[in-house]
């Protein structure tokens, strides 16, 4: 008797639900200084009831994030939109865990996109993720540090001048650690700038260029950096040290302008292009592209949401407010951007000379190899490039560390 009453009540409750609910799309991104909840809310409003976007953050550390993303995707978690690190793009593309972008949308999403960002979101000619933001690194300095260090900021600054100049004025050259990517970005930029290529080939036996002349040149730069005593190398405390007493130079992505630690010294913040090794400009960059998991239920809605999230308005907002370099080339000529985002010109120049992250599904192994050999920075010597190349070959081939 009691059971049947309960059953009837439950059924009545079910039947009493009048309107169909707006589908909620779950959107996962790496942690961001930008207020992505607000961005999600705005795109939800613009959809006029078609969907609601629920934003969730992934772990901060890049290795943890990779493991978390792989586990979620393989475990069939209910994710609709995924913010994919550009470093992970090749791995996820090959894994079949991402839904292919429909040809029509791919054409829209790649139209007018900065070439470097497009390359970072593609594997070969195929667009794998929707380019969202792609931040190059800049050389930031405080007040008149560059003038005092006798640096010519009208042209790319050589590493040797930067290091000796910083030492002369008793300042530091901080390098942003970027939750575990700082060393790899630095080494990639140095090796590419010295004329080499870190890794070529997407299989198990790529050509590793770390051990050649370019690698030795890169090790020389790191050794002179350590010898001059101008900083601890890539570090998670780089921003704090830069903003504190005695901070002079910083190498960090464009989005640090929105960091609360940096906004405190915003008045005296200046910038110029990333330093060069011998003459060729090679700027490290990394970004996030948006993709839909292969087993997502509401693919069409998800791609609609991605069109909004990667749209001009959102990208302009992210660039002006948070310093995330937009991937739509047209925005760099936009009036509002030029007036409210003074770094636009330098960022555009930087994006034209990016030293891209090596495109390989085994990027995480490469990162392990570089981390095991080029860290700690003070232990880098002439044998480091060859050792890192050997270790990278072993790890990518599939050996135990």
């Amino acid at each position: 008797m009691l059971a049947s009453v309960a059953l009837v009540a439950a059924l009545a409750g079910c039947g009493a639900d009048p309107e169909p609910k707006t589908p909620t799309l779950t959107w996962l991104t790496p942690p961001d200084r930008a207020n992505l909840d607000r961005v999600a809310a705005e795109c939800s409003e613009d959809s006029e009831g078609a969907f609601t976007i629920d934003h969730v953050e992934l772990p901060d550390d890049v290795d943890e994030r990779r493991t978390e993303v792989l586990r979620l995707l393989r475990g069939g978690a209910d994710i609709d939109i995924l913010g994919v690190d550009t470093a992970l793009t090749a791995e996820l593309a090959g894994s079949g865990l991402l839904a292919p972008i429909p040809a029509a949308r791919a054409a829209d999403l790649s139209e007018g996109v900065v070439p470097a960002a497009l390359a970072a979101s593609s594997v070969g000619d195929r667009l794998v993720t929707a380019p969202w933001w792609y931040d190059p690194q800049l050389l930031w300095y405080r007040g008149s540090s560059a003038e005092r260090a006798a640096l010519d900021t009208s042209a790319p600054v050589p590493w040797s001048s930067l290091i000796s100049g910083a030492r002369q004025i008793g300042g530091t050259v901080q390098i942003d650690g970027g939750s575990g990517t700082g060393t790899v970005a630095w080494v990639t930029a140095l090796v590419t700038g010295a004329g080499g290529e870190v890794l070529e080939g997407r299989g198990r036996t790529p050509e590793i260029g770390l051990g050649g002349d370019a690698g030795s040149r890169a090790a020389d730069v790191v050794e002179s950096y350590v010898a001059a005593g101008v900083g601890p190398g890539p570090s998670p405390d780089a921003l704090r040290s830069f903003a504190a007493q005695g901070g002079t130079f910083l190498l960090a992505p464009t989005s640090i302008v929105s960091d609360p630690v940096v906004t405190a010294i915003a008045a005296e913040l200046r910038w110029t292009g990333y330093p060069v090794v011998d003459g060729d400009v090679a700027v490290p960059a990394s970004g996030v592209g948006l993709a839909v998991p292969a087993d997502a239920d509401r693919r069409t809605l998800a791609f609609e949401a991605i069109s909004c999230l990667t749209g001009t308005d959102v990208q302009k907002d992210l660039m002006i407010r948070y310093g995330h370099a937009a991937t739509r080339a047209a925005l760099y000529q936009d009036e509002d951007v030029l007036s409210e985002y003074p770094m636009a010109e330098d960022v555009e120049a930087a994006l034209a000379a990016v030293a891209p992250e090596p495109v390989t599904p085994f990027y995480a192994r490469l990162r392990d190899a570089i981390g095991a050999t080029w860290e700690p920075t003070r232990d880098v010597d002439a044998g480091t490039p060859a050792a890192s190349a050997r270790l990278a070959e072993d790890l990518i081939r599939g050996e135990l560390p």
Partner: protein
Amino acid sequence: MTVGAPAPVAGPRRARRSDLLWIAPGLVVLALVVLVPLGRTLWLALHRTSAAGDTSFVGVDNLVEVLTEPSWWRAIGLTALVAVVVLVLQLGLGLAFAASLRHVARLWPVARVLAILPVALLAVVSAVAARSAVDGGFLATWFELADAGTLTQLAAVVTGELWRTTGIVVVVLYLALTRVSRSLLDAATADGASSWQRWRRVVLPAILPSLAAVAAWRLLEAWRLFDGPLVISETGAEADPVSGAVVVWHTAFGTYETGLAAAAATVLLVLTMVVAVAAWLLVRLGRRR
């Protein structure tokens, strides 16, 4: 046919066939639960896979790689070291505590509950507590452990396991001690044996079967430790893991080299069987004496 006297030849044969029928369902379940995963692991070990999904048949390459990799044998060596250290310390401390408790037998009802209590907790609890102890906790200050190197990891794993399961050893050995024949001890005292001689010649031989059984059990458990090494490996990213199982875990679910992890798991299984044989010999040794 005589009443009540079944044909001797037909009887045992029929019993054997029906025995098999009775245990057949159990065998089927055992096969499914053990043989199928084992088979799949061996199959995986013959391939090289990656998170990107490309799979290629590599035969015994993975196995050779595991068997010739120094870092793997370092991890196995550390696993063995942990097992031996934990075993020796647990037996020693357990015996000492049990012998002491015999002198305050009034405390036994309370003591036996308190001793078993830590085991009621999940192993991960003691693992996390031990990690805090070495990561700026009391162990770090007592032994001046600098950073998360191998020594720190070993200290954490051994401490966590000692705290958690020494209690059971105490309980088992206490009960074994209560069974030592009173009359034998009295006879030894009458013969003029000192307490150490009584201990060595009467008590130890009497509790040897229990001691051997506990030793075999704790050896296997200490060899199988996983929670402790896994939790502590998160702090010491540069140090070698102190457990082969953690290496398998990191390879399978960290770098997603599934084939290599399967090969490593197979090697670990074989090594575990060796340890199991050693434990069995230990028990037999105890019983024969």
